[in-house]
C-alpha cells in the first residue's frame, strides 16, 4: 500500500487539514494511522467526556492545538444545573505533565478556574492562543496570569463568558516585552481597566488585527487606540457616547477615515445614535456587522447605518430593526450570507418587532443567504414556503417563535408544511431548529428530506413517538439531537439503540422517557454514557422504573463513566 517513504506521506498529509479528513486518513491502514498520529497537530474534541486527556496525549504526541467542548448545548439556556461538569482542569493538568508543546487552546461551555489558567500560562512556553467561549468559573486574576506569563501570546479571545471581575490590573500584566498580540477581545469583561495601559499595549502591538473593547472604554480612548492601530481588521467598540460637536469627536471622525482595513465591526455597548455618522466611511467595506449588543440603536439608526453596508456578508442585529428595516437590508446587502436577528425584549410580546414579513423580504433580496437565526413573534406557512422557494442554500436554519407553540396566525394551522418546504428545498441543510405549533408531520418531512442534517433542536413539538422515530430513521447524518418538552417516550428511545453510537449526543428533557428505559439502554449499550439529571432533593436513586425522567443526556464515549459527576447526576 505504501510506495513512498513515511516522510513523503507525511508531507502529503500536511495538506489535509480538516478534522474529518484526517480522521478518515488514519483509518486506511496501520501505516497511515501511525504517520497521521505523529504528524497531527490540531485536534477537535466535541465532547470532553468522550475521551480522556491521557489517551489524547498518548495518541497525538505532536499536539499543538486543542479544541474542547464541555456542557450540552441546552446548558446555554439554564437547563443544565450548576456544577454539572465540563471541567478543563484535568486536561490542563495532564497536558502540563506531558511533553506536549501546547500552543493553542479553544474551549466552549467549559468550567475554567483561575488555577487552571495559571497552570496553563506557566506550563507551555510557546503558548500562543486562548479562546474561551461561553465558559465560566474564572476571574480576571486568571486572565492576568495569561497576560503576565505567556510571552508569545498572539490571541486572547474572551467571548460571552461569565467572568468575575476583580477590577484588578490584568491588562497591565502584559509585560512591556509583549509585542506579539494579534487579537485581543475582552468585550465580555464588566470592570474597569487601566486605559493608559491599554493604549500602551496597543501602541506596542504592530501585528494587532482584532481588538474588541468592553463598555468601560470611552470614546476618547477609542480615538487614541485607532490612531495607534489603523491597521485593525476587526474592531469591537465599547462605549460610543459623546457630543458630536466636541473636539474629541472630530478627531475620531478623522482617525476612522484612516482605518480602511476594518472589515468587521461590533460592540456599541453604550451608544449615542447621533454619533453614528462617523462610522459611515468604514461601512462601505464591512463584511461583518454585529449590533446585537447595542440596544441603544433604534430602528431608524440601524437602517441608516445598514444602508451604507453594501458588502455585508454577515449581519447580527436586534429585532428593533423591524420588518421595514429588514427590507432595507434586503435591498442593500446583496452579498449577505448570514443573518441573526435577536430579540431586544425576550419577554415582552408588546413590541411586535419582526414577523414573517421581514424574513420573506430578506429571502427575496439576498440570494446568497445560507445561515439564519431568527427570533420573531409569528410565522406563517405561506412565508416559509416563499422563503424555501427563494433560498435553497441554507446550511443553518434556526427559527424561534417567541411563543413556544404558536400556530400560523392566518390559517391557525401548525407550521409543518412551512418547515417541510424548507427541508425539501434546502438539500445541504446541516442544522435546524424548530418552533411554533408542530405535529408529527413535520418530523416525517425532516426524516424524508433532511438527508444531510447533523444537528436538530426541538421544543414543544410533535404528538407521539412516531415523530422522533421519523427523525432517527431518516436522518442518517444526525450527530446531535436535543429535545425538550415533547411527547416522545420509551418506544422511540429504544427502537434503534445502535443509532446513538453514530451520534455525538442526545438530550431529552421533560419528555416521556422512563427511568426503566434509560436503564435498559445503558445496559445494552456500554459504549454510551446515559446520564440522568435528577434535581429532586431525594438523593436516593432507588427510583421506580416507571418514573418519568426529567432530564436525560446520553453520549458516546470510549472511556466509560466519568469520575467527576455531581450528586444529582445518575450514571446508569
Amino acid at each position, binding site marked *: 500500500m505504501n510506495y513512498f517513504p513515511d516522510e513523503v506521506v507525511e508531507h502529503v498529509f500536511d495538506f489535509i487539514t480538516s478534522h474529518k479528513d484526517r480522521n478518515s486518513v488514519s483509518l486506511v491502514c496501520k501505516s497511515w494511522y501511525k504517520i497521521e498520529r505523529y504528524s497531527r497537530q490540531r485536534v477537535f474534541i466535541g465532547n470532553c467526556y468522550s475521551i480522556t486527556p491521557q489517551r489524547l496525549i498518548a495518541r497525538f504526541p505532536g499536539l499543538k492545538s486543542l479544541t474542547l467542548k464541555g456542557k450540552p448545548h*441546552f446548558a*446555554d*439556556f*439554564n*437547563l443544565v*444545573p*450548576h456544577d454539572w461538569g465540563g471541567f478543563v482542569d484535568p486536561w490542563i493538568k495532564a497536558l502540563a505533565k506531558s511533553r506536549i508543546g501546547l500552543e493553542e487552546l479553544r474551549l466552549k461551555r467549559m468550567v475554567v478556574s483561575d488555577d487552571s489558567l495559571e497552570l496553563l500560562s506557566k506550563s507551555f512556553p510557546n503558548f500562543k492562543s486562548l479562546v474561551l467561549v*461561553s465558559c465560566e468559573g474564572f476571574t480576571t486574576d486568571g486572565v492576568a496570569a495569561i497576560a503576565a506569563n505567556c510571552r508569545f501570546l498572539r490571541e486572547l479571545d474572551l467571548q*460571552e*463568558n*461569565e467572568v468575575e471581575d476583580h477590577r484588578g490590573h490584568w491588562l497591565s500584566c502584559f509585560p512591556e516585552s509583549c509585542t506579539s498580540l494579534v487579537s485581543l477581545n475582552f468585550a465580555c469583561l464588566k470592570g474597569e481597566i487601566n486605559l493608559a495601559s491599554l493604549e500602551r499595549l496597543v501602541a506596542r502591538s504592530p501585528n494587532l488585527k482584532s481588538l474588541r473593547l468592553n463598555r468601560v472604554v470611552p470614546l*476618547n480612548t477609542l480615538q487614541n487606540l485607532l490612531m495607534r492601530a489603523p491597521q485593525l481588521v476587526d474592531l469591537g467598540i465599547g462605549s460610543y*457616547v*459623546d*457630543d*458630536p*460637536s*466636541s*473636539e*474629541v469627536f472630530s478627531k475620531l471622525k478623522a482617525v476612522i477615515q484612516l482605518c480602511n482595513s476594518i472589515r468587521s465591526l461590533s460592540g456599541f455597548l453604550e451608544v*449615542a445614535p*447621533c454619533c453614528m455618522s462617523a462610522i459611515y466611511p468604514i461601512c462601505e467595506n464591512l463584511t461583518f456587522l454585529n449590533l*446585537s*449588543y447595542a*440596544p*441603544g440603536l433604534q430602528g431608524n439608526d440601524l437602517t441608516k447605518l445598514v444602508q451604507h453596508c453594501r458588502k455585508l456578508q454577515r449581519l447580527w442585529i436586534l429585532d428593533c430593526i423591524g420588518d421595514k428595516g429588514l427590507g432595507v437590508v434586503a435591498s442593500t446587502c446583496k452579498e449577505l450570507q448570514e443573518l441573526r436577528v*435577536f*430579540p*431586544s*425584549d*425576550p*419577554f415582552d*410580546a408588546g413590541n411586535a418587532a419582526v414577523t414573517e414579513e421581514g424574513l420573506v423580504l430578506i429571502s427575496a433580496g439576498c440570494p446568497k443567504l445560507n445561515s439564519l437565526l431568527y*427570533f420573531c413573534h409569528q410565522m406563517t406557512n405561506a412565508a416559509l414556503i416563499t422563503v424555501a422557494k427563494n433560498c435553497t442554500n441554507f446550511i443553518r436554519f434556526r427559527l*424561534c417563535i*417567541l*411563543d*413556544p*407553540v404558536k400556530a400560523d396566525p392566518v390559517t391557525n394551522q401548525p407550521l409543518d408544511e412551512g418547515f417541510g418546504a424548507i427541508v425539501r428545498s434546502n438539500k445541504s441543510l446541516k442544522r435546524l*431548529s424548530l418552533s411554533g405549533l408542530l405535529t408529527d408531520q413535520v418530523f416525517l418531512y425532516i426524516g424524508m428530506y433532511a438527508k444531510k442534517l447533523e444537528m436538530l*433542536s426541538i*421544543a*414543544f413539538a410533535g404528538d407521539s413517538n412516531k415523530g422522533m422515530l421519523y427523525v432517527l430513521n431518516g436522518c442518517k447524518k444526525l450527530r446531535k439531537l436535543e429535545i*425538550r*418538552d415533547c*411527547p416522545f417516550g420509551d418506544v422511540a428511545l429504544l427502537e434503534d439503540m445502535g443509532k446513538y453510537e453514530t451520534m455525538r449526543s442526545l438530550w431529552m428533557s*421533560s419528555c416521556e422517557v*422512563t427511568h426503566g428505559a434509560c436503564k435498559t439502554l445503558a445496559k445494552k449499550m456500554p459504549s454510551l454514557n446515559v446520564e440522568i439529571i435528577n*434535581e*429532586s*432533593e*431525594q438523593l*436516593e436513586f*432507588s*427510583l*421506580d422504573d*416507571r*418514573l*418519568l425522567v*426529567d432530564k436525560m443526556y446520553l453520549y458516546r464515549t470510549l472511556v466509560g463513566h466519568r469520575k467527576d459527576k455531581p450528586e444529582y447526576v445518575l450514571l446508569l
Partner: protein
Amino acid sequence: LIATFPNIYISTTVQYIDLSINQSAINLQSIMVFEKDLNLDATELRLGLPGSSEESLRISNKRALPDMNDDSGVAAAKKCDQETAPPTKAQVVGWPPIRSYRKNSLQTKKTEAETGGMYVKVSMDGAPYLRKIDLKVYKGYPELFKALEDMFKFKVGKYSEREGYNGSEFVPTYEDKDGDWMLVGDVPWEMFINACKRLRIVRGSEARGLGCVV
C-alpha cells in the same frame, strides 16, 4: 423523604391494580402544597394493564437554579396538564433559547436605562453649597430650567440663539467633556445630557461673554 406508591397485585398474570397519579407535577419540595391540592381522582384505584400511560409517574422537582435570572422561580408550572395551554413565557425555564450571557446583558442595560441616573453637580454663584440633579428625569430644557429655578429660587429668562439669555440675571452654563464652559440650550437635549459633566449658574453680568453675539 421518599414518596412511595404501593402496588397492589392481583394474582393473575396480566391485570393488576395500581395506585395511579394523574399527570400533574408532583413537587416533592412542597409536600404541604401537594396535600392541599390532592383530589380524589389522584388516588383513585383503577384497573390497568401494565404499560398503560396512567401508570407513569413523574417526580419533577424543579429546584430553583442558583444562577437563574429570569423571573420564573419554580418552574413546576410548566409540567402541569399537557392538555391546557402552555404557561406564559416568563415561566418557562430556558425559553426563549437565548444564552444567559446575552439575556443578562440586555437586562442590565434595561435596568441601567431605567434606574441608572445621570447625576451632575449644580453650582450657583453666591450659593453656599452645591446641589446634584439627575438629568435623566427631565425630558427637555423647559423641565430642567423649571427644576433649577425651583431649587435655587431664580428665573432663567428667555433663550434665543442670537443672544443667549440676554437680559437675565442668571444664566445656565455647563462644562462639557472637553472641559469647555458652554451655554445651556444650544444643542439638542440628547446631545446635551450626554455631554454635560456639571452645571453652573452664573450671574448675568459674567455671562455676557457667552451669550452675546458680536
